[in-house]
């Protein structure tokens, strides 16, 4: 592969090996948390409404641009700008659901295509409004800590905290509220749920709001860590698809574990093959394919979704 000098890194001694291992653990966990946030939102709406929302990461992009606009352009306090951005993006998500998805929800392929169109419309709107320039957003908390020599920015830690909290709240909603019971029952069998008197359309809309909300939280939190540009939704979409397929379509637990697996693979590639760091996504996807050959339904998926 290109015959690059220094392509593969060989740790010199046991101390170096341990340092690399701790690096991989820390950075894998941090990246995995963000991936999990996106993947769980994607999985949720698929599980509850059988909607494969390929615009999911476009909402993530919208949220990142919203925090850029409110925080950097209008200089609004981040504690106002963050919730404002999330609420706006959730509202946009709900509108998109009612206008574009709900009328054709029974035609899953049509919904899939519509979501691609919606994502492209968002991309072009962002391009028209903000241009193709690469944008940066200030960290909410600048600086870093250095436990055991591993540098972790406060923004990353904050992101990890917010992601964990968000996932816990979603778990609470799903497991401890009437809405959660409705979402889960709808996910198990939409027709029976409908016959039992549940408004499955509204349940789907609520699930869409939660799903887009998770994408929006991820967007506003990682905006200070990433570079903003109108195509920034594409790479995460590939990863999200890989994660949910690996974890099992519609399985939230599978999405979480799939996210961690892919994140750890990516980080390991960078540390072990620094000269091939750009291959990290490709290698992660190759490993995903290998797992799927052994277990076609994914790690935690049912064999055929239609058989649920």
């Amino acid at each position, binding site marked *: 592969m290109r015959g690059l000098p220094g392509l593969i890194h060989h740790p010199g001694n046991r101390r170096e090996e341990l340092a690399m291992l701790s690096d991989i653990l820390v950075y894998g966990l941090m990246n995995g948390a963000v991936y999990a946030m996106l993947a769980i939102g994607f999985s949720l709406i698929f599980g509850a409404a059988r909607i494969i929302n390929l615009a999911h990461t476009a909402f993530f992009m919208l949220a990142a641009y919203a925090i850029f606009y409110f925080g950097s352009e209008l200089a609004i306090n981040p504690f106002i700008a963050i919730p404002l951005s999330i609420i706006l993006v959730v509202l946009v998500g709900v509108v998109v659901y009612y206008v574009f998805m709900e009328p054709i929800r029974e035609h899953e392929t049509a919904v899939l295509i519509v979501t691609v169109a919606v994502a492209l419309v968002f991309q072009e709107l962002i391009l028209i409004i903000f241009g193709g320039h690469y944008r940066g957003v200030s960290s909410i908390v600048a600086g870093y800590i250095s436990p055991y020599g591993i540098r972790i*920015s406060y923004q990353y830690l904050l992101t990890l905290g917010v992601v964990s909290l968000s996932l816990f709240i979603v778990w609470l909603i799903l497991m401890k509220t009437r809405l959660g019971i409705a979402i889960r029952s709808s996910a198990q069998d939409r027709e029976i749920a409908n016959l039992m008197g549940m408004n499955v359309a509204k349940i789907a809309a609520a699930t869409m709001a939660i799903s887009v909300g998770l994408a929006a939280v991820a967007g506003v939190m990682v905006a200070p860590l990433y570079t903003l540009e109108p195509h920034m939704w594409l790479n995460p979409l590939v990863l999200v698809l890989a994660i949910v397929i690996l974890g099992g379509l519609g399985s939230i637990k599978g999405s979480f574990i799939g996210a961690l697996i892919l994140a750890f693979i990516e980080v390991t590639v960078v540390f072990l093959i620094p000269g091939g760091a750009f291959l990290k996504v490709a290698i992660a996807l190759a490993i995903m394919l290998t797992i799927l050959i052994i277990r076609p339904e994914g790690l935690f998926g049912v064999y055929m979704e239609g058989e649920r």
Partner: protein
Amino acid sequence: MKSKLFPFLVLLMILFLIGGIVGCTPTDGEDVVPPEEEEEEGVEFDGEIKIAVTGPMTNIQGEMMWWGALMAADEINAAGGVAVGDEMYSVRLIQVETDEIMDPLGAVSAVENVIVSEDPDFLIGGFRTEAVTPYTDLIARDYNKIFIICGAATNELLHGRVDVDYDAWKYLFRVTPIRSTDLVTVTILMLNDVAMAVREELGIAAPKVAILAEALEWNEALVQMAPQIFPTLGLEFVGTFRPSATASDVTTELRGIEATGAHIIYTIMSGPVGIPFGKQWGELEIPACPVGINVEAQKSGYYPATDGFGDYDCTLNTFAQNAAITEHTIPFISKFVDLYGQLPNYNADTYSAVYILKEAVERAGTIDTDSVIAELEVTDYTGAAGRVVFDEAHDVIWGPGYVTAVGIQWQDGELVAAWPLEWKPDAQNAPDLVIGYEGVVPYQIPPHVLEQWRE
């Protein structure tokens, strides 16, 4: 619920979008003015010379190409136009959005479309090698039109083409930047200066160098050559890290570099990865001095985009606002900043390309392609970046007395030239030959690097 909620939500969405348009676009000063709006009024011309500017126009590289060409065209038209024999022609620019960063194949269609529909006399621009390679093939071999490259650095765009099969490729020239192997030379000279600073100020005899290079075709030569050159400079090579050119997070790569114990990061990046690099390098206080090529760091917007953490990043460039490479440099930069609100990067030397075409046409007395090529080949034009003379492959010659490029560094939020300060290009044979432009300041080691290595 639907009927009450819908109008409200739609209204909110529209307000949000309109707010974005109103709030962002004018303040950025980044509007691309269509050529139709720039036509001179009240000046009679006998004809027009159509120049197509091809580039990623929604990205800064394309904007710079467009603005540089626009500035030259406006000046030429205001001064009476181009003398073609006994007639005076105006310059009309045609903007070609190639979107070549995201869609290199689509760029070929965009270029062919403009050739077929507008039939431009000349073309200039071209940024991403992966797109420029196929569309220069189209321009030269299928349509026999002159194309002046103003963005892509790869040697093979000209060398091995023009000098090997002249009749097929004679239509291609390059004004900016210097070719990729010369880029290596300049960045190695800059690296040497940084290494000397590290030795003097940190007391490290053999500084360690890690390469951080985006995974793209244009920098392959640099990535291959650099590790072989490092030992000749007394430097120890510790590894190569190759993130994607569009990576939005390089924290892991930076941690890997830190783990190698590198004192210097030799950067080779033209894509957006330059921004997360600058931001995360500064925020995490990675104890290594970046030097090399980071195209994003050449732009005024780099400092705010990195939230100020990109301070002390050091990169090659064509211009610097404080370095008088020629008597034209400072006036060009000042006027460019006045007009467009941003410092020009190397793509903006489409300005020189338009003037070089003007002079060649005037010498030829015609816009006939072969006649203009013959005149372009004898170009000797002194512009803002230096003296432009083409070699046998139609490439701009690099070296003392020609175009040299400059090294620039962000110092306390200002972009200043830091190379060449006292460059001796031939210390053995011509010890008195010292190149240093007026206004160039010494390189500064980033304070956090100084602090950490002194500890």
